[in-house]
């Protein structure tokens, strides 16, 4: 379960503090339900996902996680350019508890195969193309076992065969673990999610059914 209590967020800009993006978000997200996050551009969807995933911190309020929650899938901030793909992958596996030699080798093999990096797996990440980097990031997110995965508009870049593989893996995730996702595709949301969160003017509204969230979202749009 993820409990978000009174989360406020605004960003520091060059001209001082920006406007409040989130103004007191309160949510309780159960563990085994797939949730779609809807709202217009700039409503704070990505911000909320980043805060839930722990890669950003709220200015006020707290997020409590009683299960293992992923970082936003495909998030690239945690890769170090001077280290190789393998070294980066090892680090991420180790901090997530895959410490035994067998576990580690198993995960590394999975990541190497899934990301289709071949020999480049042992080259520094800074030499990777953007496609290679995002394949590695996506593979890393998949390799670690979480109870809830967070996905921000995940359209894993790459060639056609990788995109198909990624989509299949994503479906697999949606079946076995919880999912909190942002997507502008209505069909995608309906395919993966049961429940929905509608973000509007810094507040979050919970809907048991994703269809209701989509209706509320659409009604709020200017005609």
């Amino acid at each position, binding site marked *: 379960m993820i409990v978000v209590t009174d989360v406020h967020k605004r960003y520091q800009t060059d001209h001082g503090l920006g406007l409040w993006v989130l103004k007191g978000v309160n949510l309780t997200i159960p563990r085994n339900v797939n949730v779609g996050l809807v709202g217009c551009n700039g409503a704070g969807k990505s911000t909320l996902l980043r805060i839930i995933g722990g890669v950003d911190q709220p200015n006020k309020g707290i997020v409590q996680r009683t*299960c293992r929650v992923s970082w936003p899938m495909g998030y690239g901030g945690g890769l170090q350019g001077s*280290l190789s793909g393998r070294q980066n992958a090892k680090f*991420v596996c180790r*901090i997530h508890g895959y*410490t035994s030699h067998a576990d580690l080798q198993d995960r590394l093999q999975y990541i190497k195969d899934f990301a289709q990096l071949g020999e480049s797996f042992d080259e520094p990440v800074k030499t990777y193309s953007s496609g290679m980097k995002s394949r590695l990031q996506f593979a890393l997110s998949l390799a670690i076992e979480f109870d809830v995965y967070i996905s921000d508009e995940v359209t894993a870049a790459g060639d056609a065969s990788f995109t198909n593989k990624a989509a299949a893996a994503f479906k697999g995730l949606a079946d076995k673990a919880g999912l909190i996702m942002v997507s502008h595709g209505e069909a995608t949301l309906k395919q993966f999610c049961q429940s929905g969160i509608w973000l509007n003017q810094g507040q979050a509204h919970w809907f048991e059914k994703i269809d209701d969230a989509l209706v509320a979202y659409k009604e709020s749009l200017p005609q």
Partner: protein
Amino acid sequence: MATRSPWQVMWSVWSALFLREALARLFSSRGAWAWLLLEPIFHIAYLVIIFTIIRVHYVSGFDTGLWIVVGLLAYFTFERASGQTANAINANKSLFSYRQVQPIDSMVVRAFLEVLLLSVVAIVIFSAAAMLEHDVLPHDPFELFLAIFGLWLLALGWGLVRAVLHDLVPELEIVLNFIMKPMYIISGVMVPLASIPLPYRDWLLYNPVAHGVEAARAGFSATYHPVSGLSVSYLFAFALVLFFTGLLLMRRFAVRLVTA
């Protein structure tokens, strides 16, 4: 997978960070590991040669060469460990996007790695000294250990405080840099504190690093007469106060430190 206890999480983060830091320090560029070890070795050898050839052979009951070696190694423990700790946040900012990794983790790991690297330097230097028939066995290993540990704790505390200050007010880094410049001289690394007249000697003894350096020498040689007023408790009191002040600051500014 079962949920891990906080201690298990911390331990796996520390070991992962340790391997990562060691890799980055030792193999980031061609022969990086060799320079890392040679730099302090040359620094020490340089001073030892200058002092033993130009100056006296004994500093109040201590082989001059070893007096310099022990003093410099003790001083390096403070200087290098505090520098590494203070830079830890900036160097590892991207890692804090993983919830498991906290700034304090990278600091502790870096300070530990630095001591480990210095131990290798110490082993090389003492082996060389032993081959030149110097007496390299410390007479009171525990006292020596205590002095080095005190300096390390002080370095960690100072590094913590410095890292937070640097994050809050970047300009302070410049000021602190020139305040800390004379540290090398006023810690009695090259000049025996005992030879400095009163009341100035007592002023220098407000500096906890001077206590650590002298205590390390006293632990090393049975015949050495350290400066009167030497107090290992002062070093530890200073170190603990700094350390907990640092922890307090880290706690207070935890969110600020991990957001870019």
